[in-house]
Structures are given as structure tokens and as C-alpha cells.
């Protein structure tokens, strides 16, 4: 906009862009300093953390990697399981399927809603869209009961007890379920906007829905799928509620974010290891975010801005 306005009102442009730069950069600094503080703190020695603020440590640098070693590997030199490392692995183990499953299932559903004509398709689409705002809290308890006890009407079992509570599958499944409404909605927007001629031409050539889906829709929807995958990845990695509810907090299945929450909570060891633990936890999403930001933004825009 500034370039366009420049021809007509050069004076105002210079003024407003300087003011704008000042405002933007001031807020950016305010926004970034807290994270910087955590980063610096995480390299300080135990005693330093409580004895000296992090900004004065910048003037008298005395940094160490000890916190990271301690948090990652734990105190027991015999076992690698005493630190956060197993939880870090759990996070990867949870996040991969919990990202792949809902995206695949949602892409299929979005295709059906957009390109297979059937009665009630409109109603179904609205219902799924509406489910987006149903708070997770509404489903937690019954879903947990479903996993442990199944569902019965009288003595008839309509849903078997899956026995997967406290198992990785018991975390993948809720993540998949809860991700579907938003994923279907966003992918539907994306897939429905593919050119109609292309689809019709393929059908005329004798391709069935499965072929169209594989040969045309999937390749063309890749940008949307990629964007949504990043979004879902961040969501799952950063989730606490599902992790607390469905992964009992043990090193067998609990993700690092819930471990981090417990470091602050009842069984933790206070501030000293918290900063390094927090930075390990946020490092992965930050790397994903900065390297794939372009696609991520595109995904958000696909669902929120109508042009």
C-alpha cells in the first residue's frame, strides 16, 4: 500500500511509515524478549538462575550446558530413562500418527463432501463445521469411559471396550477424532475450489472416484494438506489436555509437554531445570514453524479469509 500511495502523498507516507516502523519494532521487541529470557536462563548455572537476573548475566556471561544434560539425561548415569528423553521420544511417537491419520481421513471426507453428490451432503457439511466449536471438555470423560468399558445398551454391546486407555493408540485416536471437524472444513474449502472441468474430464475418461482422488485431487491438494499437517503437528505437540487425560503421565506414553507441566507441578524439582526443559519442549515446534512458516500461513488463510 505504501508504494501505491507514495505517488500521491509522499510526505504522509514517509511520516506514517516511520511511525509504523517504530510501533511495529517496539512491539516486536516486547514480544520477543520473554522468549529470549528463557533461552538465556536455560544456559545459566543453578545458583545463577535464582541469584541474578538473566539480563545482567548477558553482561557477565557464565554459561553452561549442564542444565540441558541434566534435563535430557537425568541424574542417573546408568539409565537414559531418568530424564525427559523418553518423553521427548513419546512426543514424536504420538505426533506422527496423530498428524497423519486425521489428515488422510479428513482429505477423503472433504473430497466426498465436495465432489460426490448425495442427498444430505449440505446438511452433513454444516454439521461437521458446527462440531468445531464443541469444547473438547464435552467429550473427555465419556470417551475415556468408552475406551475402558465400551458402550452398551442394556446387555447389547454397541461398541467394544478397546482397552487402549494409557496406550499410544489411546492418544492417537482422540487426537484424530478431535482434529477432524477443522481439518475437513479447511480441506473442503481447498478441494472444492479445484477446477470442475478437470474432474469432469477425468470422469468422462472413465476414471472412478478412487482414481480421481489419487491421480488428481491428492496431487493438487498437497499445499493444503501440507499446511494443515503443520498446523496439526503443532497442535498435537503442544497439547496438554488430551495428554493428561489419555496418557497417564508415565514415561511409557506421556508426551514431553505434560512432563513439562508436571515439572512445574506437584512432583517437579523447581526452577533450576524448568528453563532447559521448557526450551527443549518448544525447540521442535519452533524449528518446524520457522522452516515451514510459508506453508503454515497459507493453510490458515485457506480457512479464514475469503477472497
Amino acid at each position, binding site marked *: 500500500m505504501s508504494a501505491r500511495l507514495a505517488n500521491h502523498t509522499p510526505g504522509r507516507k514517509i511520516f506514517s*511509515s516511520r511511525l509504523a516502523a517504530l510501533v511495529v519494532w517496539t512491539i516486536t521487541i516486547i514480544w520477543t524478549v520473554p522468549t529470549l*529470557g528463557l533461552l538465556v536462563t536455560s544456559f545459566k548455572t543453578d545458583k545463577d538462575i535464582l541469584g541474578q537476573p538473566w539480563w545482567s548475566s548477558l553482561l557477565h556471561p557464565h554459561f553452561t550446558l549442564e542444565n540441558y544434560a541434566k534435563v535430557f539425561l537425568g541424574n542417573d548415569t546408568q539409565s537414559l530413562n531418568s530424564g525427559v528423553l523418553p518423553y521427548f*521420544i513419546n512426543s514424536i*511417537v504420538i505426533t506422527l500418527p496423530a498428524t497423519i491419520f486425521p489428515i488422510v481421513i479428513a482429505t477423503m*471426507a472433504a473430497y466426498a463432501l465436495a465432489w460426490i453428490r448425495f442427498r444430505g451432503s449440505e446438511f452433513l457439511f454444516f454439521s461437521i463445521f458446527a462440531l468445531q466449536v464443541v469444547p473438547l*471438555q464435552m467429550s473427555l*470423560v465419556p470417551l475415556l469411559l468408552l475406551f475402558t468399558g465400551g458402550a452398551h445398551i442394556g446387555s447389547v454391546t454397541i461398541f467394544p471396550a478397546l482397552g487402549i486407555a494409557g496406550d499410544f493408540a489411546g492418544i492417537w485416536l482422540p487426537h484424530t*477424532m478431535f482434529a477432524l471437524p477443522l481439518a475437513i472444513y479447511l480441506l473442503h474449502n481447498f478441494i472444492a475450489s479445484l477446477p470442475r472441468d478437470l474432474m469432469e474430464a477425468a470422469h468422462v475418461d472413465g476414471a472412478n472416484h478412487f482414481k480421481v482422488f489419487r491421480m488428481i485431487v491428492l496431487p493438487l491438494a498437497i499445499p493444503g494438506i501440507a499446511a494443515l499437517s503443520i498446523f496439526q503437528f503443532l497442535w498435537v505437540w503442544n497439547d496438554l489436555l488430551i495428554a493428561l487425560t489419555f496418557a497417564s503421565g508415565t514415561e511409557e506414553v506421556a508426551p514431553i509437554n505434560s512432563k513439562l507441566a508436571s515439572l512445574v507441578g506437584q512432583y517437579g524439582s523447581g526452577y533450576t531445570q524448568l528453563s532447559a526443559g521448557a526450551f527443549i519442549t518448544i525447540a521442535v515446534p519452533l524449528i518446524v514453524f520457522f522452516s515451514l512458516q510459508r506453508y503454515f500461513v497459507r493453510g490458515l*488463510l485457506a480457512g479464514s479469509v475469503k477472497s
Partner: protein
Amino acid sequence: MSDFITTTIPKFTSVFSAIFVFFAVLAILFAIAGRVNGKKARPIALTLFLGPALILLLAGLIIPAVRTIAFSFMNPDSNGWVGLANYTWMLHDPNVKVIMINTTLWIIVVPLFTAALALLLAVMLDRIKHESIPKSLLFMPMAISFVGASIIFKFVYEYRREGEVQIGLLSAIVEFFGSTPQNWMLSKPLNTFLLMIIYIWTQMGFGMVILSAAIKAVPADIVEASALDGAGGWRLFRNITFPMVKSTFIVVLATGVVGALKVFDIVRTMTGGNFGTNVLANEMYSQVFVQFNQGKGSALAVVLFLLVTPILVYNIRTLRKERTIS
């Protein structure tokens, strides 16, 4: 070392086998169903494409939501009916009153402040060089979990008793300006607003990015025409830019309300819901998973749902309008 390997390898085998089985089953079903021709082809394709999603939505969201409504009329163990007791409890309990006031504050202050700041930044960003650097830095907290964000802000809000070195940024700033730092998490009602800042810090970037895109989508000729007419900064914004991005602004507001209603990680990590900072979603978690009262917890979840219903209705109406236009 060896125990780590013996516990880690099975984890990865389970991941890769799960993913493999998932795709193998899909491939086989696709191959078989792809051979069906004629009248049955469409219903089979429909079932296969839509079936998995519908079953998961039914089992994961719809049936549980209905059961939660039922549980809200039952006792703590969900094996006997108690009528409206869990709802009347909410009306009479003084702690719930605080929770309701706080939740209301959250859903008013957070979305308005987030959206306003996001809009301001989106407009300003449009007028500066190298906008991508501040944009990514402002957007970055979005990638950080609420727990991580809370820990970051624990180091900002940290308070040491008077006379000791203040290691918290906020306390140090207050001290620098010659005032006495307080025990921030105890100062009612300031503490609730300090918690809101954490949420705004993580979510503002989202609003900023989509508003910024919306501003860039405003047609150049309209802007130019009104600039020729002599419209200056504020008038240009009020008469041209804002009306054009209004619908996006409302999307940001609505997302903010839904998000603020569900917030629980921040309150749990920062204060545990103490000192008058408790909110609905955190109390719901405590009731069900700490105090084992499914009745009260479910009733709180139902209230949460009722509070988002207006947004639900609004969203559906907008979507319908959009669909009839396009």
C-alpha cells in the same frame, strides 16, 4: 543405556507398524472398491470416503457430548440421577461465582484486545520495509505450547521479597521506575489480566497474519481512488480498509472467544486456579480428574458448550450466506 534402547525400539515399531497398517488397509479397500462398477459404485465410494470420518466423529464427539449432558444430571460416579443439583451448586457456590466472573472477563477482554492489536499491527506492517522479520517474530509464540508460554512468563512475573534481587522482568521494570514490585500472582484482579497477557502473547500473531493478508487483498484501485480524493490515514482506514476486512476481523474475534473459553493450561500452570484466577475449563478439569466428580465436571462442560453456542449459530449463518453467494 540398554534399558533406553529396549523401551524405545518398541515405541518406534508401534508407530511405523500403525502407519503401515493404516495405509495398507486403505490401499486394499481402494483397490477392491475401485473394481466395482455400475449402480453400486457411488454408494460404495461414498461409504469408503466418508465412513471413517463419520464413525470417528460419532464415537469421539457426538455420542460423548450427549453422554456428558446426561452425566451433568448424575452423581459424582455417574450411577444415579441427582436432577439439577450440579447446576444449582454452580449458582450457590461462591468459588463458582468467581469462576464465572473471570471466564466472562476472559471472553470479553482477550478477543477484543487480541483483535485490536492484531489489526493495528497488520495495518502498520503494511507500511514498513522488511515486514517479514517482525511478522515471523510476532507470529512465533503461536508455535509455543501454553505450558511453555506459562513457563516463559513465570520468569517475567517472578517476584522476590523486598530487598532481594528481582529476577523477574516485570518486577525489575517496576523497580527501575522507582516503584515497589508486588507479588504479582497474588494481586487481585491484576493477576487475571497478567494471565490473559500470556494468552494474547501466543495468539495475537494468528490474527495479525490473517488480517494482514486481508488488508493486502483490498483492491489497489479503491485505495488509490480514495487517496486521490484526499482521504488521509485514519479516514482511509475507517472508510475503506476496515469495512473491507471487517469479516476477517470478526473471524479473529470469534476464534478468540472460543479459545479464551477453553483456556486451562495457562491458569493451571501459573496459579493452579488459586488467588481468584480460576476459570471454567480449569475447574472442569479439577472436578473430574482431581476430585473425581463427573457430575459437577460435566455440568461445567455443558455450561462451556452453552457459552459457545451463539458463536456456533453466527458461524453457520455466515457460512450459509457465503455459500449462497458463491
